[in-house]
């Protein structure tokens, strides 16, 4: 019995962590976030480490690892608030396209193709938005689709069928959000040519499950960094002639954040492990994992900012990048309320 990271997994984690520490520190993230740059160079660097190929099978040009490895990478990207299309292009797309478009999967693995995700309206359609299919044509509107620089989009229709659309076939507008480390866009479909990938809603749901696990892992990482920063700031910052880390109020804030977040690590591991090995547990575990971590993350984001005092509120320290990343993850691919409702349904506890 072993419920923890293997040596190989730890080595993978270390190498990516080293790359992000050295090549994509906060200053680099700021450049991407403030639009001087996009995330292409970062993604290129990650491609050299094999990250876009991570879960793609070896015979399709990938590394052939599983959801646990994907989760620990997602956690690291959250820890470093790294801008990248990891969740959409490297994880959700290969799952959805498996056995359907091996050509594209090979290009994803090679880092030469990015695929965005437009699932929002199939999860909870917003007013006036929504996508419907007629033949091989899509019409409608999808909001907050992931990745403005994608070459293709995987689009879920209102009835959860999956279509693939080329980026240049669709009207695409940037949608600014609080989280400047990610890009989202509005996609307008007007009898737009599309390729049916699957009309089995289970395929949509499998891609959604892993996307949710990845977002949970991202929040885990971002939350852990906020705690680390808060503890370290509290040890350095002096007020009333002592480090504020020696005040019981500050200590208890840090203890409460830790008590909340530490079990989330096991939860992400388990959900990812279940994704690959325990199909009957996957969906319920996934719903609870993303919902629970979103709540803990919200508390950690607020509390760690408070520990920093005024500095936490400024752009100088840049703590807000993590705050906003956690806020973004909370709403994307299903809010906590929606996920808890779904968890109840899965157990026959709600209609």
């Amino acid at each position, binding site marked *: 019995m072993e419920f923890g990271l293997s040596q190989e997994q730890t080595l993978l984690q270390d190498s990516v962590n080293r790359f992000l520490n050295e090549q994509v520190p906060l200053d680099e993230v700021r450049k991407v976030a403030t639009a001087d740059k996009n995330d292409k160079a970062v993604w290129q660097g990650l491609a050299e480490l094999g990250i876009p190929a991570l879960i793609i099978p070896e015979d399709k040009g990938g590394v052939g690892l599983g959801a646990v490895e994907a989760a620990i990478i997602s956690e690291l990207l959250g820890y470093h608030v790294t801008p990248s299309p990891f969740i959409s292009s490297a994880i959700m797309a290969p799952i959805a396209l498996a056995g359907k478009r091996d050509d594209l999967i090979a290009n994803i693995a090679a880092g030469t193709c990015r695929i965005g995700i437009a699932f*929002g309206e199939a999860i*909870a*359609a*917003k*007013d006036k938005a929504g996508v419907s299919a007629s033949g091989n044509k899509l019409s409608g509107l999808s*909001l*907050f689709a992931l990745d403005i620089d994608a070459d293709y989009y995987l689009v879920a229709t209102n009835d959860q069928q999956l279509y693939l659309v080329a980026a240049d076939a669709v009207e695409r507008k940037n*949608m*600014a*959000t*609080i*989280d400047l480390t990610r890009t*989202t866009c*509005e996609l307008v479909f007007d009898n737009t040519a599309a390729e049916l990938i699957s009309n089995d809603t289970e395929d949509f749901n499998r891609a959604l499950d892993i996307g949710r696990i990845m977002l949970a892992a991202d929040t885990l990482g971002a939350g852990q960094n906020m705690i680390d920063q808060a503890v370290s700031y509290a040890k350095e910052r*002096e*007020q*009333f*002639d*002592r480090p504020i880390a020696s*005040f019981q*109020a*500050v200590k208890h804030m840090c203890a409460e954040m830790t008590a909340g977040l530490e079990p989330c690590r096991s939860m992400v591991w388990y959900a990812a492990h279940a994704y690959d090995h325990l199909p009957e547990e996957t969906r319920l575990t996934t719903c609870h994992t993303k919902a629970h971590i979103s709540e803990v993350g*919200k508390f950690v984001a*607020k509390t760690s*900012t*408070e520990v920093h*005092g*005024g*500095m*936490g*509120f*400024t*752009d*100088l320290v840049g*703590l*807000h990048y993590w*705050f*906003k990343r956690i*806020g*973004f993850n*909370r*709403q*994307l691919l299903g*809010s*906590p*309320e*929606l996920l808890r409702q779904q968890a109840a349904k899965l157990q026959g506890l709600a209609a």
Partner: protein
Amino acid sequence: MDLSFGAEYETFRTEVKDFIANNRESAPTSRSNAAAAKQWQKTLIENGYTARTIPDAYGGYGAKPDIIQSRIIAEEFADSGIQGGMGGQGISMLVPTLLEVGNEEQKLKFVKPTIEGDMVWCQGYSEPGAGSDLASLRTNAVMDGDEWVINGQKIWTSTAHLADWIFCLVRTEPDAKKHHGISFLLFSMDTPGIEIRPLVDMTGVANFNEVFFTDVRVPAHQIVGNRGQGWQVANSILGHERDMLGNPDAALSRLNSLIELMQKETIAGEKAIDHPVFRDRLMQLQGRIMAMRFNDMRILSSRLNEGQDASLARLIVKLQGTELRHDLEGLAIDVLGELGLAYGDNEYTRNNGTWQSQYMYQLGLIIGGGTSQIQKNIISERGLEMPREPRPAQ
């Protein structure tokens, strides 16, 4: 219990209403220039609708203080939506300080131009190393001839880039105990040696500044109170600032906007207001706001009626009010789901993106003006007479 202000005040309210109705045209709008704003401010002073209790010798209207009249004026201007008296730290903080502890020359020189909008001030209190522990501030002023020479840095200086003058706490007596070594100086922001850097915050906007002083020379007489008394001078009005934070009327107005939003917005085809979990959270907030509004009425009553004690009710306003607002803005974001993420230049933002910006700004207020932790210290020590933490052994 008598919740009305009485007939006399209702007459006064009618007067204010009439004034507003008759002068609506002259009030400046967001597109008006500075001259129009100043002209309007003068009109308001002449009619006693701002600077009402400031003696006319110093440029005010010279009425005797009347809390209810002030409240009626505030209510009517807020309801009408037209511009009331100017705000800002000069008018709300410096002027009361000068009237309380300034000398005659200072009152004559500074009050009138300040209230008339000709002299804009900023406040130089906090420093990077002096936040909750403000009295540990290190910006220092050394006497050289008949001038102070100031070096150091201030932060959270909200209108520094617009201000003509600054009121500033500096350490003038380095050998005194920390609360006794501070002085309160006034000087022009045009004085050589001042550098202003905008301070962008998490909302993405530079709501504040950092201000750096390098050998800034200030005439010796530009001190309020005596040398080493700056802490007391500043504290004579610090309570004012705390009272301004956590206003339950602002929370009510935001709640009403949220209710409107929830009646309009849909989630998967269902109106947000019909979502029982969100509705329950909404009702919880409405209950909390109601409690804080009645608490506020009690505070007002205690200022009007001798013998009523609302000191605890007052101590808790900043703590409760800022947390409440943060929670309220957070509910709106949750209700909106992905739409709640829209920010900045995005046509899908709701209420101009204020749910997100206020969610963050209110967190700033939880921290600023005495963090929630400091507020809890104050409530327990002043309100409940619990002991201060023991002084650490050296």
